[in-house]
Structure formats: structure tokens, C-alpha cells
């Protein structure tokens, strides 16, 4: 191993140091037994800290009514306890939320190993402490050595008491300081006798023998050792972190092989102890055989063991392979493992001639350069319960019977041509076919039926079930054995086939899922699809939450539901904030009805995925968990991609809006400047040259001022109308108006403003009445004419006409100018669409005119369209406005 070669800083040691920064520091007051004075010692130190000016808060301290301890707490600030309803009463617990909100510099939390009442955020108090540390709060806590997870077995062996409340060794290792609170055994027993010791654990109290001197001595030794080993590892860590040359850990690497059985948990604990003794890095591995799925309890056992191993600091790994020893040895070589720990296989199919014996035997036989430790069982392992194959559907049985009937029929025909013994082969066929196609039990039924039919039809005396000769009985027995064996083997093959088909389906499903998601354009579509796919794949209600401001909101759910109860929301929030799974089936808020896992892409957390706990509370099997992990990963990736593209689109939209705004400002300023220039010019002309001008010239200048002021007013109205149209606040004051009159007025006003074009207004004899808002219609049609004046050229002709049509009034405004360029046609009625006819000054208008026309006409329930150019009208722009006949329209 290379790290032995040179004194250089071990990355692991540096990482451990780095991950501590920004976190609160944990000081643990460790004792050998209840009553040694841990709490007292902690409070004493806390008072000193407070005297030194630290902000000390008592999170929770049990004084057990001891006067001296109570006196110690008295002048410290105490956090009120949370009251959590549990089975009809209120249980007081450490209030984690309040502690986090209060954020003291130093927090005292008694009883590190305490189990919280159901309904708390975490099942264990040490998890609460972890949250506080993460929030940067220093925590002091107390614990007895018997609660250390890896010592659990040892303590039980010493004292005969099983301790239920345990703390993982890893959390112990993260403690920055461990303070040993020690008391000689005799002293403790004396205090006990004086009634000064309160023993909380009922199991402990029940056991009279717990406080025997021998027990206490052993526990003291354990505690001392724990602290001593801690000192060792601290030293080692410093040496590695500082690259100090010195006695190095021997570089032992330990591998523990776990199977789905009762021994797994014990193997893990032993592995941990060995690893600690050796100062070794250790692995816990399990092997999955392809095509073999574990049943619920077995999988659960394996899960528990693997999780325990993880919490005890092992690196866990699931391998896949059919040849167990080969896989394990390959992994061991790859990871430079020096010692392998296996349990002695209990079953061992040694009685089968082709069996290779137990795994332990195989490992011992094949391992090279690796020590193999075989752990034996304490007691005789229970025989594995023989699990019967599934019964299958009822229709399978008549099918099996039919198979036998067919064989019988065939046999009775064949027996005329061939000698009798070969007929039995037909029955083997009749058993084999259902065995392969249907299942074990129908095949067994077929075996018995075959046996009966063969006996009845073909063995003398035919027509009866009597067996004449003994050797025929033997033949029948052999026949039955063969039939059952065949059906069992065939059935197993079929099971494996099904399993592999299931995996193929899962793989295909994942592939389809990825493909579906990658094709979706936006985040919402991705979320919807993901929720429904995950629901379909795992058969559980799925929900995806996304951060929405400061909160998490349901972004998609399948089946569609937009509610989550408070515990579920809390779990989701925790999962999102800490980047770890939370809720049902985890160590955080397990009482919640949902399981949540964070959705991470690159270094961004995009949301959390939740699965509802099913009614029967069944955990997901390994295969489903792997699928869930893959689905979550794909969802996160697709979501990340969709969000990115949304961001890009939003940026583009913002840029477009910005562009539009600039165009609007530029064109408005231009539009306003021209009439203003005219007004200012005319006014200054009148002021400076008034007396040198004749009356007519003066009148004309004044008229110019008036006209341009009107023009400005018109533009202001256009802008206002646009704003109102956009806000949906356009008010229409309908009245009966003459459309012809409006057209004439528009032409006149255009001429007055200097339009040089020729205008022709074509109207029928009778007035054309429309039920409309005169001012608005004036504006709408005026904008079309204004367009023609601007774009058709100075010498163009503009034709205006109005006709009564069966369902209303049609107005056409038509010019023979260059017309609308093809590229502009589709958006001619959109805002800020302008045709640049002039050069440097840009367009002549804000590009609002036709948009306003369309808005006004449509507000009247009418339509406006740009007519296509055709041979009859080869050039020019022609607009047709249709207004519906109002109620009570004159006939």
C-alpha cells in the first residue's frame, strides 16, 4: 500500500478535520455506569463556561430529584421542553426546534443514547444532537459505555442485560472531546446503597446483579479502553494529518461477508471489534445472485446488517455474481483486503453430491495471501424454513390433467403398435410439459395422475388400480421421484427466467423513462411525467416537491393530490435541507407516512421525491430501491436540464422584452419629436417673425400648431388605448354611428396633415350604421389609413369603401403602394411591428397602430384582416374590417 511509503498527509485525516470546521463541537461525558456523576460533571463544567462568558443553554437535563444536581442547574438558562402527545398522554422531550431557533453558543443535552418518543423529528436523541452540531452549536452530552453500539454484545455478555438504546460508533468518533467520568466501584455501590443513584433503565433495575463489583469493574475497564483507544486514534489522526513519521497502522484491511441470515448482525459487530483492534479500514459486502430474489424477512435482515455496518463505519458494497467465493476474492484483491471474515454456513448442501460445501470452506480452500476468519455460531442455527413454491392459478390444474389425458389417449392408440414399457415415456412427457410451462404443483398432480392412469390402463390387470407384481410398484415409485425432480428443476429454471425477464423489464422501463423525460420541453412536463412513471414503476403514490420561495411546494404528484400532512412536509423539508433520505423507513422522522429522497443534479438540489408508505408498511426490496435510485437520478437530471433550458428561455424573453421596450422608447420619442418640432418651430416663428408675416401666414402657423397638437393628442390616445387593451380595461361606449361619415372624416384629417396621396371614398347611397364606439372606431380605421399614408408613397391612391353585409358592416381600405412585405405579413397586427420605409430616422411610428386597430375591432366582436395580394390586386396593402351587426340593427 502506497500510503505506507512516504510520510504524507492522509487525505482521509485532512477531510475529517475539514468537515469539522463550521460545525459545532461535541463534548461527551462518558461513564461506566449510571450514578458515576456524569451529569454533575457536565453541569460543573457548564457553570465554569458560563462564568467565562459563554452563552450556555440547558437543552435537557435529568436531575432525578437529586438536590445537588438541581442546585447546579438552578442558575443556568433552561429550555422549556416540548410536549409531544403519545398514546393519550403528553410526553416531555428535548425541544430541538426551539434549541435551533435559540442558537446558544453551548447546549447541554443529557442522555445521548435516549430514544425519542414517536412523532419526534428523529427517533434518537443523538440525531437531534447531530442537527445542533450541524447548525454550528457546541453540544455537551452524557452517556454510559454500555450504549456504544459495538460494545452492545460485550456488555450483554458481561452483565446479562441487553441494552436497547445504542449510539453508533461513528457518531462517537465525531465527538471532539471525550471526558471520562470515573468513580471507583466500591464508591458507586456505596452511593447506590445510600439511594443516591437513580437507575432509569427498567431492564437494568430489574436485574439485581447489574451493580455487582465484578460487572462494574468490567464496565469501567470498557469505558477506560474506549477513551484510551480514542486517544490512540486522535494521535494517529494528528500524525497522519500532519504527515508525522511514526508507527503506522499496519495497513490491515478487513472484509466482512454478510448473508441474509441471523448471523449477519453478529458478524458486523465482530467485524467492527476486529477492525478496531487492528486499526483497520473495513468493508461489509453482500452478494446478490442474479435471478435469485430474497423474500421479505431475509432481505430485511440483510438490510439491517448492512445499515448497522455502515453506522459502525464500514464501507458497504453489494456485489453481484453467481460464484460467491470468486466474487468475494476478486473484490478482496481489488481492495487489498488482508483479512476476510465469514460466518460458518449453517445449511451447507453437503449431502448433495454436486455441492461445493459451505462458503467458508470454499473461501478457506481458495484464498491466497489473505487470512480467512470463520466465525462459528453460538447456538445451533435454526433450520431454514422450507418454503413451498407458489400454488399457481387454479386453471393450471385442469391443464395438467388434460396433459395426462392426452398422453393416455395417445398411449392407448400406440399400444397397438409398440410394446408396453415405452408407454411410460409418454407419461414422463405429460409431467414434463406442465412442469416447464405451468409450475411445480400442477406437475406433481400430473405425476400422480400419470401414475394412476398408467397403472389403470397399462399395467396388468388393466382396468384396475391393483398392482400385480412388486417390481412394478418400485417402477412407479421411481417414476414419481423422477417426475417430481424434473418438475422442481424445470420450475426453478422458469423462476430464474421470470426474474431475468423482470430485470429486463425494469431496465427497459428505466430506458423508456429516460427517453420520455429527455424529450419533454419544460420542468412541469418533466415533473408530471416523472411522478406518474415512478408511480407506475414502484406501485406507490409518488410526489415531487420543488423549492418555491422559502418553502417546498408540491410540483407534481401521481395520483394527483396536492396535500401532504405536516409530518410528511417536515420530512420533505429535512430531506431537502440535509440532502439525505428522510421519512418512512429512515432514521429521520420515521413516523411520517412518506419516504423522501433528495433530487440532486451536479451540485444543485432541485427538489425532493416522495413515495407514500403502503398500507402494509412493506419496505422496498433491493431491486425496487435500486430502481428508485436510478429513477430519482434520471428525474433530477431531466429536471436540471429542463430548468436550465427554462432559464435560457427566460433570459431570451427578458432580452426580447428589453428590445421591445427600447424600440418603443425610440419610436415614441421620434413620434413625439416631429409634432413638437413643428409646434416649437411655428411658435418661435410667430414670436420672432410675427410682425414680418402677413395675416394668412400667421393663421397658417397657428393652424399648424393646432393640428400638430391634435396629432400629439392622437398618439397619446393610441398609447393609452394600447395600455387599456393590454390591461383589458378598454371601455366601449356603443352608439349608432355612420361608418361613411367616419371614413370621410379620416380622409379629411389625413389631408390636413399633409397627406399627398389621392383618396377615394366609395359609399352606398344610404348611411351605413354600425353599433360601435365612434371614437374608438375612428382611431381603429384612422390607424389603417395612417399606415397607407406612411408606407404607400406620396403619389399612391388610397381607396376606402364601406358596405353593408348580411351579418354586419364591412370596411375595406386599400392602397396601390408597395404593399406589406411577405416576411412581415404574419405579424403585421402585432405590437412594435414596423416596416422601415425610411432610412436614418427609423420607422415612422411605434408600430402600435395596427395592433390597436385589431384590439379595438376585436373588442367590438369584429375581425380585421390583411387581404392577400392576387392577380386582381397585384400590389398594395388591402385591409378588411368586419363589424358584426349590433342588436336591433336597422334592416
Amino acid at each position, binding site marked *: 500500500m502506497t500510503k505506507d511509503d512516504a510520510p504524507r498527509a492522509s487525505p482521509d485525516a485532512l477531510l475529517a478535520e475539514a468537515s469539522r470546521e463550521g460545525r459545532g463541537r461535541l463534548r461527551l461525558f462518558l461513564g461506566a455506569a449510571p450514578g458515576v456523576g456524569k451529569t454533575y460533571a457536565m453541569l460543573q463544567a457548564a457553570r465554569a463556561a458560563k462564568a467565562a462568558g459563554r452563552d450556555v443553554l440547558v437543552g435537557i437535563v435529568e436531575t432525578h430529584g437529586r438536590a445537588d444536581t438541581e442546585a447546579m442547574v438552578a442558575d443556568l438558562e433552561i429550555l422549556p421542553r416540548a410536549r409531544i402527545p403519545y398514546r393519550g398522554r403528553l410526553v416531555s422531550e428535548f425541544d430541538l426546534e426551539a434549541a435551533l431557533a435559540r442558537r446558544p453558543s453551548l447546549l447541554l443535552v443529557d442522555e445521548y443514547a435516549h430514544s425519542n418518543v414517536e412523532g419526534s423529528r428523529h427517533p434518537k436523541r443523538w440525531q437531534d444532537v447531530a442537527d445542533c452540531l450541524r447548525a454550528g452549536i457546541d453540544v455537551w452530552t452524557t452517556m454510559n459505555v454500555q450504549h456504544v453500539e459495538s460494545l452492545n454484545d460485550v456488555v450483554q455478555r458481561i452483565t446479562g442485560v441487553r441494552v436497547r438504546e445504542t449510539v453508533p460508533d461513528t457518531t462517537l468518533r465525531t465527538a471532539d472531546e471525550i471526558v471520562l467520568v470515573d468513580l471507583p466501584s466500591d464508591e458507586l455501590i456505596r452511593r447506590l446503597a445510600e439511594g443516591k443513584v437513580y437507575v432509569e433503565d427498567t431492564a437494568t433495575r430489574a436485574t439485581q446483579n447489574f451493580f455487582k463489583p465484578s460487572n462494574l469493574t468490567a464496565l469501567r475497564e470498557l469505558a477506560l479502553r474506549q477513551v484510551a483507544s480514542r486517544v490512540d486514534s486522535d494521535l494517529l489522526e494528528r500524525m497522519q494529518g500532519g504527515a508525522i513519521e511514526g508507527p503506522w497502522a499496519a495497513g490491515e484491511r478487513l472484509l466482512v461477508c454478510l448473508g441474509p441470515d441471523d448471523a449477519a448482525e453478529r458478524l458486523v459487530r465482530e467485524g467492527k471489534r476486529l477492525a478496531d483492534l487492528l486499526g483497520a479500514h473495513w468493508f461489509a459486502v453482500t452478494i446478490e445472485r442474479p435471478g435469485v430474489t430474497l423474500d421479505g424477512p431475509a432481505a430485511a435482515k440483510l438490510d439491517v446488517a448492512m445499515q448497522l455496518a455502515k453506522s459502525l463505519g464500514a464501507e458497504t458494497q453489494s456485489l453481484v455474481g453467481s460464484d460467491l467465493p470468486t466474487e468475494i476474492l476478486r473484490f478482496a484483491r481489488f481492495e487489498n483486503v488482508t483479512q476476510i471474515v465469514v460466518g460458518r454456513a449453517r445449511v451447507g448442501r453437503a449431502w448433495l453430491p454436486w455441492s461445493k460445501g459451505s462458503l467458508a470452506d470454499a473461501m478457506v480452500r481458495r484464498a491466497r495471501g489473505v487470512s480467512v476468519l470463520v466465525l462459528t455460531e453460538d447456538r445451533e442455527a435454526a433450520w431454514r424454513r422450507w418454503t413451498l413454491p407458489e400454488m399457481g392459478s387454479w386453471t393450471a390444474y385442469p391443464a395438467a390433467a388434460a396433459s395426462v389425458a392426452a398422453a393416455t389417449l395417445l398411449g392407448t392408440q400406440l399400444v397397438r403398435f409398440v410394446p408396453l414399457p415405452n408407454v411410460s415415456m409418454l407419461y414422463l412427457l405429460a409431467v414434463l410439459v406442465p412442469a416447464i410451462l405451468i409450475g411445480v404443483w400442477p406437475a406433481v398432480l400430473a405425476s400422480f395422475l400419470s401414475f394412476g392412469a398408467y397403472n389403470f390402463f397399462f399395467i396388468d390387470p388393466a382396468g384396475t388400480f391393483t398392482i400385480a407384481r412388486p417390481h412394478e410398484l418400485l417402477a412407479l415409485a421411481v417414476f414419481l421421484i423422477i417426475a417430481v425432480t424434473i418438475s422442481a428443476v424445470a420450475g426453478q429454471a422458469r423462476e430464474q427466467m421470470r426474474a431475468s425477464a423482470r430485470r429486463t423489464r425494469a431496465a427497459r422501463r428505466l430506458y423508456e423513462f429516460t427517453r420520455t423525460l429527455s424529450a419533454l420541453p419544460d420542468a412541469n412536463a418533466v415533473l408530471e411525467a416523472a411522478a406518474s412513471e415512478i408511480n407506475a414503476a414502484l406501485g406507490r403514490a409518488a410526489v415531487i416537491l420543488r423549492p418555491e420561495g422559502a418553502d417546498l411546494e408540491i410540483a407534481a404528484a401521481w395520483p394527483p393530490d396536492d396535500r401532504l400532512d405536516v409530518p410528511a412536509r417536515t420530512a420533505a423539508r429535512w430531506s431537502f435541507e440535509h440532502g439525505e433520505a428522510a421519512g418512512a423507513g429512515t432514521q429521520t422522522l420515521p413516523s411520517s407516512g412518506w419516504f423522501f429522497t433528495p433530487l440532486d443534479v451536479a451540485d444543485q438540489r432541485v427538489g425532493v421525491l416522495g413515495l407514500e408508505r403502503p398500507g402494509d408498511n412493506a419496505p422496498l426490496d433491493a431491486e425496487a430501491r435500486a430502481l428508485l435510485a436510478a429513477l430519482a437520478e434520471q428525474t433530477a437530471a431531466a429536471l436540471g436540464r429542463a430548468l436550465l433550458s427554462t432559464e435560457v428561455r427566460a433570459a431570451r424573453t427578458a432580452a426580447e422584452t428589453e428590445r421591445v421596450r427600447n424600440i418603443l422608447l425610440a419610436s415614441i420619442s421620434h413620434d413625439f419629436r416631429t409634432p413638437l418640432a413643428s409646434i*416649437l418651430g411655428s411658435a418661435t416663428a410667430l414670436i420672432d417673425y410675427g410682425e414680418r408675416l402677413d395675416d394668412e401666414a400667421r393663421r397658417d402657423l397657428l393652424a399648424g400648431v393646432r393640428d400638430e397638437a391634435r396629432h400629439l393628442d392622437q398618439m397619446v390616445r393610441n398609447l393609452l388605448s394600447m395600455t387599456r387593451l393590454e390591461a383589458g380595461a378598454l371601455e366601449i361606449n356603443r352608439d349608432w354611428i355612420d361608418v361613411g361619415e367616419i371614413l370621410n372624416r379620416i380622409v379629411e384629417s389625413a389631408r390636413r396633415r399633409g397627406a399627398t396621396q389621392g383618396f377615394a371614398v366609395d359609399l352606398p347611397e344610404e348611411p351605413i350604421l354600425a353599433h360601435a364606439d365612434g371614437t374608438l372606431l375612428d382611431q381603429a380605421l384612422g390607424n389603417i389609413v395612417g399606415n397607407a399614408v406612411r408606407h404607400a408613397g406620396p403619389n399612391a391612391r388610397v381607396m376606402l369603401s364601406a358596405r353593408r353585409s348580411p351579418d354586419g358592416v364591412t370596411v375595406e381600405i386599400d392602397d396601390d403602394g408597395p404593399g406589406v412585405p411577405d416576411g412581415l405579413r404574419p405579424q403585421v397586427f402585432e405590437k412594435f411591428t414596423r416596416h422601415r420605409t425610411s*432610412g*436614418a430616422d427609423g420607422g415612422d411610428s411605434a408600430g402600435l397602430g395596427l395592433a390597436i386597430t385589431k384590439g379595438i375591432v376585436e373588442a367590438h366582436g369584429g375581425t380585421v384582416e390583411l387581404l392577400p395580394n392576387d392577380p386582381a390586386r397585384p400590389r398594395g396593402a388591402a385591409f378588411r374590417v368586419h363589424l358584426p351587426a349590433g342588436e336591433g340593427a336597422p334592416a
Partner: protein
Amino acid sequence: MSLPTILVVDDEIAIHRFLRPVLTAEGYRVVQAMTGTDALKLAAGEDPAAIVLDLGLPDFDGKEVIQRIRKVSQVPIVVLSARDREAEKVRALDLGADDYVEKPFGVGELMARLRAAMRHAKATGGGVLVSGDVSVDVAAHVVRKGGREVRLTRREFDVLLALFRNAGRVVTHTHLLREVWGSANEGNTQYLRVYVGQLRQKLEDDPAAPRLILTEPGIGYRLV
């Protein structure tokens, strides 16, 4: 034909409407054009004494009108332009326009610019140029302020002379740089700021509030 002719080019009839009576009252004959094509035609046919030109024209760019007129004539051109289009004004001036007026404008301002442009066209090189109490004797390279000689460096004199030659009109940075330092230095406006600063120190009564050499922000300088 005795009256001098002014050609007004603008596509807005409203502008013509107030310019025509004013120019007529000032004693000019007014010819109007709405498009660039008409402007070129009339500039060639009517022999105007000056042209008032809007840069935004429906058929082609006003700057192109300047370019094409400058090929055949040095007739004074005053450009009408929007306030927010500095770059366009500079381009127009560099192409040979004599001055500009920002829209909207009072007619008095336009008339003053127009007169300055026409006066300059008549002025010839040499002799003594005078503005206020400052005079420049071109041949003798002598500058006087209030009758007392002012010592100028060669460059300062060149800058001042360039401004005097265009008195009353805006002179673009580019124009000044090209004239005094040569075309390689067209971008070095910091030279100008230094020399104009020195000229103001020597010639202005109050250099902080110049009355002789005015700054046209973003465009150039004007000697009045």
C-alpha cells in the same frame, strides 16, 4: 432671381409649413423637397445658397444626400437631426455638412446657423480673422487678445486657426485632428482636450466658463 435660394429637405410637411414663411420673411426664396431624389434634383437645378436637410428621408439616407452634393458643390448644408443621435450628427459633419440643429428647434437658432454657414462660405483664407476681442493674423502667425499679443505654440495656433476658419460652425474632433495632426491621429481626442484647454487658459476671460471656444459634447468644438 436676385433673392438667394434656400432648399429645405424634409419629409414632414409640418416642418415646411413653418419654415417657408420664416425664410420668406428673412428674404430668401424657398424651394421644398420631400425626398432625397427631389433634393438632389433641386440642389443641381436651383443653385441654392444653402440647404436645410433632414437626415430621415423616405427614399434614402440624408447622409447620402450630403455625400452626393459634396461631390459637385460646396454649398452650405445645415442638418436637422434628432437629439439622441450623436453618431449620426458626427457622420454628417464629417461627410461635409456645415452645421446641425437638433429637433425640436426654435427658428431663431436655425436662422443663426444658416447665416453663419453662408458667411463662412463667402469668407476666404488669409488676412486677419476676428472674433470678439481675439484676432488672428494668419500670415504673421500672430494672435492678439484685446490688442495684446498672446504667445501660442505652433500646435495651439493650428488648432485655433482651424476653429477660426470655421467660425460659428461646429468642427468635429475628427476634422480638427486630421487638420492639425494628420489623418493617423483621428482617434486621439485627448490631444484636443489638452490643446483646447491651453487655448482657453490663454484666450478666455474665464477659462472655466468659455465664451470663445465652446464644447459641443460628443461632437467637437465651436468658435463663436
